[in-house]
């Protein structure tokens, strides 16, 4: 454990504490932020002079595909994504490769160089949880966790259809503990199940094959389960009809399904005092909204549908979205939404892979390249930015590229630049297809985000949305000692000189994790092992017993034995479980 540290003279941006560019010293002791240091603590402290620099909490990525079977599938499918992008080993760091899908080591280093310290894997198919944990534990530096894909799970669909939400909640709780997952992810609810028959669902009220359950029922059910248990994160939704022209309407209606679901976080953690309530207020967190905000009715009259989503989000208090920006260039598209990827395969003919995950879900992977000359891709670029710039309250938005779907996370600095500089957007408008200008409202907005707002979108709000703001996303006393110092002076920042913004965010001057410097100016200086966050929710024991009987009965349909299903403790490095809905005596019994 590093000793004490003081970061002096920096301009601090800490939105959860409403600190907006104030010159302020930050003190760290035993890996945690403290109010002050005295005596020997102060005398022996490592001092970092952040004069003329920007200080923010360590970055938090709430939606990124960085570990597990489909990520590795993307690696295996794309040798061309590797052989021109290799990194030598050093005395400290491992070798690695990858441009859009990196090897685990490079992922850890590159996030850290960019100032990120916490990253959540966006989709864990339960059967692939072991693989996901193997990659998370091999990723250096970062604190990680992942969301369990449950939107097409046979047990969930069955219980919800039977109206047995208690059993569905007990199943969810057991699954979280069994697979050491952090939150609930729902991908193309009820639709991926249909994909087993080569079909999909096309509306919120279309019952799927066999289970006869509708997307609306799944979304509602999982959102209620989420709050019944009191999970740290709300339901994380990848809505139906993703990637089809006109899908924005389905998305808007999907968000409305959880409008009146009462938010209830019931976690056994120590909340720090911050100016803004660190607890989430949303009952649904929409993933990569860009892919779900397509307008028009075909590729011919394709246009941005962002306005419909933005209007809805602006008048709603129960929604947070991440954008899933498209920064142009190579990408690898990967999702649990098998039919959506098949649709893309039919459109492009690019190499494609698909997988059925038995009773649970599925996935698809496709190699992709977003081109500035392509009209649809150019509109997608505009949608990704519209979604962040047109939603008035930054506490409802999060910046992502849905790595590596819209593009690799290494392009976040470019996305930040577009958000902060109208001139940077104009430069890209001039290079890309005119549809971006003609078929979106991006050109009509003058908004240029401030560093304070960028800090909300890249640390404070992702942390709050996924329920980890009790330790991440702010610089108040008690928070983890994760601090990023960017080498630009906010008092002299000229957003018209926008390449400086990109460069500044690419390589942080310092990335500090748990009070130790992990990266400085693009160089890795230490490689600590991060933590793995997961939730341990609890539900009534009697119901759980009943539920387990059902699970064991249907386990004959699985290709693996029941005993091999759970993720063993040894798969987890630096285990950081969060107790959820903890009844005292139940925990003692376990």
């Amino acid at each position, binding site marked *: 454990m590093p000793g004490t540290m003081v970061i002096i003279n920096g301009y601090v941006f800490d939105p959860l504490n409403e600190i907006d560019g104030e010159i302020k010293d930050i003190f760290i002791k035993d890996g945690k932020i403290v109010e002050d240091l005295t005596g020997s603590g102060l005398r022996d402290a490592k001092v970092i002079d952040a004069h003329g620099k920007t200080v923010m909490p360590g970055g938090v990525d709430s939606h990124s595909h960085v570990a597990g079977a489909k990520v590795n599938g993307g690696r295996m499918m794309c040798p*061309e*994504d590797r052989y021109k992008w290799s990194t030598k080993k050093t005395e400290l760091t491992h070798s690695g490769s990858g441009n859009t899908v990196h090897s685990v080591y490079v992922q850890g280093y590159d996030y850290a160089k960019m100032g990120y310290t916490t990253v959540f894997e966006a989709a864990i198919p339960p059967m692939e949880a072991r693989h996901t944990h193997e990659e998370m534990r091999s990723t250096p530096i970062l604190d990680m966790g992942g969301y369990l894909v449950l939107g097409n799970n046979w047990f969930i669909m069955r219980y919800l259809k039977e109206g047995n939400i208690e059993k569905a909640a007990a199943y969810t709780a057991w699954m979280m503990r069994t697979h050491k997952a952090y939150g609930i992810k729902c991908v193309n609810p009820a639709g991926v199940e249909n994909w087993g028959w080569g079909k999909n669902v096309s509306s919120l009220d279309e019952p799927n094959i066999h289970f006869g359950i509708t997307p609306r029922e799944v979304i509602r059910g999982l959102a209620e389960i989420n709050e019944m248990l009191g999970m740290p994160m709300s339901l994380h939704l990848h809505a139906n009809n993703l990637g089809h022209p006109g899908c924005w309407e389905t998305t808007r209606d999907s968000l409305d399904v959880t409008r009146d679901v009462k938010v209830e976080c019931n976690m056994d953690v120590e909340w720090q005092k911050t100016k803004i309530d660190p607890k989430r207020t949303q009952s649904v967190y929409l993933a990569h909204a860009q892919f779900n905000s397509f307008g028009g009715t075909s590729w011919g009259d394709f246009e941005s549908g962002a306005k419909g989503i933005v209007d809805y989000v602006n008048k709603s208090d129960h929604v947070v979205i991440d954008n899933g920006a498209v920064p142009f260039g190579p990408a690898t598209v990967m999702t649990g939404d098998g039919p959506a990827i098949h649709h893309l395969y039919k459109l492009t003919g690019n190499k494609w892979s698909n997988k059925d995950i038995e009773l649970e879900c599925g996935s698809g992977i496709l190699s992709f390249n977003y081109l500035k000359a392509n009209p649809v891709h150019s509109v997608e670029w505009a949608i990704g930015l519209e979604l962040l710039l047109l939603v008035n309250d930054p506490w409802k938005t999060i910046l992502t590229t849905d790595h590596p779907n819209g593009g690799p996370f290494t392009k976040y600095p470019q996305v930040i630049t577009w958000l902060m500089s109208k001139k940077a957007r104009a430069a890209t408008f001039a290079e890309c297809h005119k549809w971006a200008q003609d078929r979106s409202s991006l050109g009509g907005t003058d908004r240029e985000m401030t560093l304070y707002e960028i800090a909300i979108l890249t640390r404070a709000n992702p942390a709050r949305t996924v329920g980890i703001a009790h330790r991440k996303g702010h610089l108040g006393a008690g928070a983890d000692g994760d601090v990023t110092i960017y080498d630009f002076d906010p008092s002299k920042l000229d957003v018209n000189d926008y390449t400086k913004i990109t460069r500044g965010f690419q390589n942080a001057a310092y990335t500090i994790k748990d009070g130790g410097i992990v990266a400085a100016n693009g160089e890795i200086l230490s490689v600590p092992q991060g933590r793995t966050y997961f939730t341990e929710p609890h539900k009534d024991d009697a119901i759980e017993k009943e539920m387990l009987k059902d699970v064991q009965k249907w386990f004959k349909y699985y290709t693996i034995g029941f005993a091999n299903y759970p993720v063993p403790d040894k798969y987890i490095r630096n285990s950081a479980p969060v107790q959820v809905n903890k009844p005292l005596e139940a925990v003692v019994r376990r």
Partner: protein
Amino acid sequence: MSELLLRPKGSIDIMIEAEVINPDIFAGKTLSEIEQLIVWQGAKQLPLSGFFDVEGSAGSTAADTKIIIKGDVTRVKHIGHGMKAGEIVIEGSSGMHVGSEMIGGSILVKGDAGSWAGMEMKGGTLHITGNAGDHVGCAYRGSWRGMNGGKILIDGNARSQLGGGMNGGEIHVGGSVENFAGIRMNSGLIVVKGDAIRGVGAQMSGGIFVVSGRIKQLSPGFEYAGTEQNPKAGGTVLSGEFMKFTGDYAISKTPKGTLFASKNEGV
């Protein structure tokens, strides 16, 4: 033009990766700086002088630099990788990846070349007087973006997957090729004076492929489009009577690929 001589010192055990043998990199350097350039051998990084005696001098620019390799370098990979200008002459056979991703200048191999010669080449000239291995001018594993400019001349034979994913440029083979030459090509010109075994132009959607010899087994997705006397293929006029095919209909509904096959030799 300044000449720089590289003489192989002896036999090489594990193949070396020598993309530093490149006029762009040699230009403006002293002899000792060139000797100290790093090549990889397995996991080791070693100076170029460990494998070659270096003589002569490099020019101030790449265009003014000619590298002459005196001897067999079949265990040296990536000679001239990505070179933009200047000249390389190999007086012997070369290893894999000679002229990979080259952009300009010229390479002459007075002997055979290993696989991946001119891989994803963008410009310049690569002339191989002997035979070439597999994947000449081809896209690398996983990609279908192959050669898109420049010229490759092979006086002898080439093996399989010549010009895979070709997007432009020209490849001329004096001898024969084996399987899947021109697979996935969508632009450019390939002329094979000798024979081809099978899979010629498989999945091609554009470009011109000429076989003056015999195609042992024509791909099934090609449609016969008549006979032509001394047809023109790009800038090249072919002599003799050729059967013209369009394809490959196996993938695209409207392919624009053209395959000329010798009427005399047949398919």
